[in-house]
């Protein structure tokens, strides 16, 4: 990075921290500190919801995903607007009228204390592990790309968050989320404009779309139904709706965002805006990735995008062989760009036979290129058997660092830091709130003063932040456990959703039936995870369905027993 980039990065990060401290000042009780006094307008709620959901990985990995796998990932978000509508009708008015601090507090009012404690503990465990990952994942990528030790990148992200969340609480979190989301959007728009600008002069935007489409990167919609296919229309609209319902309806890191709304209207509008904006935003980020792909069809891409792994193979015995593969790969890239120009030319003629012939030629070159890359990945593994051969996360940032002008590179990296900070700060504030309200205040000290709870909340916020930094420092030593942690998070949402749906819609179901049904639901989800190939998007449907079904069964059995006794 050049001096201008470091200046932009530093100024942006400093402005986020200062803005957070400024906007978060004046919280004198836990209502102010944990609920921002319920004074937030819809646009702050909306952008805070979006910023919390969009982690750094969204902006590093999503363009890379479009590069590798095409744009089909956008289908995952099709269920989100449906979930937003359901939550706006159901959860928002209930949570507002009851003036709860956490979603789990409502469960005690509706069921009993054991159900509240069970769900809050599930949240603390799953979200606690995820919070460590949301610092670790971008830290490792930024560490690789900037050539800085991961301990520094994770401490910058975690330290900045601790400063403004501890001082300003949720008010600071919401306002910085708002600011961070604007920075992120600006960065992505600039990056998109630059990709288009950097395409060869004879390749227009429409030509680029034809190239992306011809090479299978614009696979936005797939109507085929397949339980094992992770991203298709049906898994997106059904599975995605359940994921979004669970995430936005039962995960305190999101519930807390709309609980800060000034009124039911403001919270609902925040959710509606998210429902409107999320799908186009993801489409745009994926299209950015598809355009980076097109750019690399006319400019030779590196054989492997992760510079650390490449440096490792250069310094090993496989260096010469690897360099030979690189030169072959470059030759193929030149042949491919010529073939693509021919493909664009025949598109204009409209001759179906010529188009198919040009397409077949591209496919043949692509197969050869893939063969070279597979050989290169084998060399990476031979140089170091622990080498990470998945470079999806590095594709976009590699492009940014190599081709974007000074200043803009700093802005894009600021976006990545901002995205990481926005999602982590939302998680930390939710973890602190649940720790204080659902555990400490409910089970350990019920009669403390406002000042006491405020001090404990600040302490909890700082403690969760320190935990996140510590997790990131040691996560690389956990090896495959990191992947397991990611999967772990998706195993609990279905059960949580089932519990909340019972609370909202099944008024005749009691706490004990719900509590035990939650255990059965969780066992069913773990069964799917361990013994089937079903895509994880469907775990939520299974968990939720089993919890509801079992709770009704338990209620029916209990009722029959009571009737027998009475009879």
């Amino acid at each position, binding site marked *: 990075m050049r001096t201008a980039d470091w200046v932009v990065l530093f100024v942006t990060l400093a402005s986020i921290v200062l803005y957070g401290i400024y906007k978060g000042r004046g919280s004198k009780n836990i209502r102010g500190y944990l609920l921002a006094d319920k004074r937030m307008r819809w646009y702050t709620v909306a952008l805070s919801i979006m910023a919390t959901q969009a982690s750094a990985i969204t902006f590093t990995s999503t363009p890379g995903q479009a590069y590798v796998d095409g744009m089909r990932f956008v289908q995952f978000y099709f269920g989100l607007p449906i979930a937003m509508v359901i939550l706006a009708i159901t959860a928002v008015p209930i949570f507002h009228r009851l003036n709860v601090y956490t979603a789990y507090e409502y469960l005690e*009012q*509706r069921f009993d204390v054991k159900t509240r404690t069970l769900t809050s503990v599930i949240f603390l465990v799953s979200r606690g592990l995820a919070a460590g990952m949301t610092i670790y994942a971008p830290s490792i990528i930024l560490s690789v790309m900037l050539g800085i030790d991961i301990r520094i990148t994770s401490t910058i992200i975690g330290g900045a968050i601790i400063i403004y969340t501890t001082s300003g609480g949720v008010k600071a979190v919401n306002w910085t989320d708002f600011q961070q989301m604007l920075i992120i959007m600006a960065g992505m728009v600039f990056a998109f404009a630059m990709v288009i600008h950097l395409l060869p002069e004879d390749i227009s935007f429409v030509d680029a779309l034809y190239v*992306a*489409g011809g090479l299978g990167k614009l696979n*936005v*919609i797939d109507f085929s139904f397949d339980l094992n296919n992770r991203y298709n229309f049906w898994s997106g609209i059904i599975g995605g709706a359940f994921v979004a319902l669970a995430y936005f309806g039962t995960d305190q890191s999101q519930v807390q965002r709309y609980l800060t709304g000034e*009124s039911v209207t403001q919270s609902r509008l925040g959710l509606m805006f998210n429902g409107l904006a999320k*799908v186009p935003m993801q*489409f745009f980020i994926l299209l950015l990735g598809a355009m980076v792909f097109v750019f690399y069809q006319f400019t030779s891409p590196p054989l492997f995008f992760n510079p650390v792994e490449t440096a490792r193979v250069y310094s090993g015995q496989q260096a010469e062989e690897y360099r030979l593969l690189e030169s072959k790969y470059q030759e193929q890239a030149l042949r491919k760009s010529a073939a693509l120009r021919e493909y664009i030319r025949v598109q204009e003629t409209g001759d179906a036979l010529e188009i198919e012939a040009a397409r077949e030629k591209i496919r043949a070159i692509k197969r050869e290129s893939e063969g070279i890359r597979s050989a290169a990945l084998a060399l990476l593994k031979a140089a170091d058997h622990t080498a990470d051969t998945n470079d999806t996360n590095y594709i976009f940032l590699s492009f940014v660092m190599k081709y974007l002008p000074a200043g803009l590179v700093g802005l894009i990296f600021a976006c990545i830091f901002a995205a990481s900070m926005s999602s982590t700060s939302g998680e930390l504030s939710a973890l602190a709130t649940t720790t204080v309200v659902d555990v400490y205040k409910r089970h350990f000290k019920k009669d403390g003063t406002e000042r006491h709870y405020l001090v404990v909340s600040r302490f909890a916020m700082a403690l969760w932040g320190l935990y996140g930094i510590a997790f990131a420092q040691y996560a690389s030593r956990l090896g495959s456990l990191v992947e397991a942690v990611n999967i772990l998070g998706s195993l609990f949402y279905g059960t949580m959703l089932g519990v909340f749906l019972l609370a909202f819609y099944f008024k005749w179901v009691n706490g004990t039936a719900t509590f035990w049904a939650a255990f059965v639901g969780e066992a069913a989800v773990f069964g799917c995870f361990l013994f089937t190939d079903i895509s994880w998007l469907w775990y939520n449907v299974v968990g939720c369905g089993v919890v509801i079904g079992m709770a009704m069964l338990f209620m029916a059995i209990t009722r029959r027993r009571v009737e027998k006794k009475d009879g």
Partner: protein
Amino acid sequence: MARPEAGSSNANPEDVHPQGNIGDTADRPPFFTSWSRVYTAVLAFLALLIILFYVFMKAFS
């Protein structure tokens, strides 16, 4: 009704749930006159996006 304190369980959700229905006049949306119309607009927008994505995919593939 007094605002329940965090961590307390002195509020009855049954008492307050009916107030949260879609037709609550205090919570009218600033546009489209009713929440049902806002929800319909959001879902219609989703349907439109899916159609546009499909057309986009077919046009360039």
